């Protein structure tokens, strides 16, 4: 596959050419005063900053809500209360400025969602322009959990910032097809070499085998470890960490009926909420805060690796930054590794 190059100032114009076919989003300053996903039309000047947009990429893969089915709730309608799939007429989406951690979350989430038709449909619609990182933030820890600042996992096109220009490298067929018809200049050998060199320099040299260590640990040793108490003492059981996390994928399904119309929706749910596991009988298997806190971390760092292999965390650090009580997953990971 060929690499391409484009000057930084032309990048937005180049993307805008695809507006007919795609909805295009990238990270930018929002009217609310924080860095988040913004439609390309609202971006005047694009400058990729260090750091991540506030919400993760799952906003696009797991819309809030996803409409699973629609139905008529009008008794006179012969097809009343019969579920039918909504027409999926969503436009394709280009996401640019996606950092390697967010991109990697796509391939991690694809593991449990392999049978999920809604997720798979959305996945097909999305084209990811991943931007490789040259430096990391104080809350980044992608290399602890199997990622790297230059990981291209989950990207369709990888972009590297060469100070005066971007080098675009297609990763998937989808990405290649788009770049081939874009009429861009092919990257020079010097640029290609620079790209490769930067990837090599920044890739994770001391790639840790955290997942393997965790897998080798005894489940009950971790489950009964003493550190959960102090950790859960502070937790207020809100959903901030789960909702900002790119790899927290749990959901709830509910029916809504309004004025003769109904729909079955699915929306984000959080294992931090007591309702998550509450039985109709009133019994709650994870009624204690400690059990819920433990489940979240155990799921990411033990259960998921045991089942699928990798750790279900991409090291983006959003939860560390936004947790109301400053619970640090790196600290939890360290304690689990020491157990």
């Amino acid at each position, binding site marked *: 596959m060929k690499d391409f190059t484009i000057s930084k100032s032309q990048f937005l114009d180049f993307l805008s050419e695809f507006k007919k076919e795609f909805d295009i989003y990238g990270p930018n300053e929002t009217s609310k005063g924080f860095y988040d996903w913004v439609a390309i039309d609202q971006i005047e000047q694009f400058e990729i900053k260090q750091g991540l947009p506030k919400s993760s990429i799952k906003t696009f893969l797991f819309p809030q809500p996803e409409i699973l089915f629609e139905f008529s*709730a009008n008794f006179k309608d012969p097809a009343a209360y019969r579920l039918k799939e909504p027409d999926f007429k969503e436009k394709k989406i280009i996401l640019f400025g996606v950092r390697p951690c967010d991109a990697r979350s796509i391939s991690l989430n694809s593991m449990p969602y392999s049978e*999920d038709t809604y997720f798979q449909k959305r996945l097909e619609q999305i084209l990811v322009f991943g931007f490789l990182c040259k430096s990391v933030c104080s809350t980044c820890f992608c290399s602890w959990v199997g990622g790297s600042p230059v990981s291209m996992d989950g990207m369709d096109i990888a972009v590297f910032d060469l100070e005066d220009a971007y080098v675009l490298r297609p990763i998937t067929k989808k990405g290649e097809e788009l770049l081939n018809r874009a009429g861009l200049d092919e990257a020079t050998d010097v640029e290609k070499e620079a790209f490769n060199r930067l990837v090599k320099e920044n890739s994770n040299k001391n790639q840790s085998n955290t997942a393997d260590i965790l897998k080798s640990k005894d*489940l009950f040793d971790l489950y009964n470890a003493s550190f959960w108490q102090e950790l859960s003492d502070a937790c207020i059981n809100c959903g901030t960490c789960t909702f900002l996390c790119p790899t927290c994928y749990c959901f709830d399904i509910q029916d809504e009926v309004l004025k003769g119309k109904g729909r079955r929706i699915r929306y984000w749910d959080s294992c931090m909420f007591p309702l*998550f596991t509450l039985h109709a009988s009133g019994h709650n298997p994870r009624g204690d805060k400690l059990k819920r806190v433990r489940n979240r971390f155990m799921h990411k760092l033990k259960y998921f690796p045991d089942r699928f292999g990798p750790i279900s965390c991409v090291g983006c650090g959003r939860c560390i930054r936004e947790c109301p009580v400053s619970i640090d997953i790196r600290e939890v990971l360290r304690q689990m590794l020491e157990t």
Partner: protein
Amino acid sequence: MLKIASQNPYLPYQAIIEDIKIETEDGNLKTFKLVLEREEDRDAWNHMPGQFAMLSIAGKGEIPIGIASSPTEKGYLLFTVNRAGVVTTALHKMDVGSPIGVRGPLGNGFPVDSALKGKNIVIIAGGFAFTTLRATLIYMLEHREDYGKITVIYGARTPGMLLYKKELEKWQKRDDLDVYITVDREAPGWNGLVGFVPTIAGQVKPSPENAAALICGPPIMIKFTMPPLEEVGWKDDQVYLSLENRMKCGIGICGHCNVGPVYVCKDGPVFTREQVQRLPVEF
């Protein structure tokens, strides 16, 4: 999971309620007889005893319910439902002829065609947890020669709270089946056994020799049934339990029903006691 209605794993089969039977004296348990509307769906449907399905009432939601009919009972499905939450209450209000969705079969079911084959079977049930065991028993009676001695111990609070009373009577008359029906307390008109299920199990003393026990019931019953069984030599890997947890997707994605690393909906609901002992107590 064996088969799903379509590519979309969330789309239920369309069914009709053909019959409703009130099972218990308090009216809180009803058995719904459902028939899938389309013939190809009926042909495609294939479940094992112990599996469950999501009953879907548009506008109310879905609930996981164990399938009470055996796959040998062709053409219809039975679900015995306790009225507890939003969906089950709505279901209890529905009439014969109402449309309803069925999504499944889901879960693993009892290994009736593999591990249980050729074994002496002990079925122990309490209260309304008898449903999937009814399916299992009917299946085994249809394939009677595949199994050794079959013992059934079933108890409820009062005679009026027993499920499937007519069938119980029939089973009690069979000579290829040992059936012990018990109620918690003496009741007028009741000539059968009196005592909690664990007590009766202790008296029956089923032999663990080439045997398997299938136990379903409230957690407290299971807890107290184990010691008398262990006393006569039962091992954890001979005992099969069916777990319950809140479920939403039924296919191991949504995260609600996990007990440690396993999903009750996908990896269960049937586990051996040995497997359960290796899980945290989050069910």
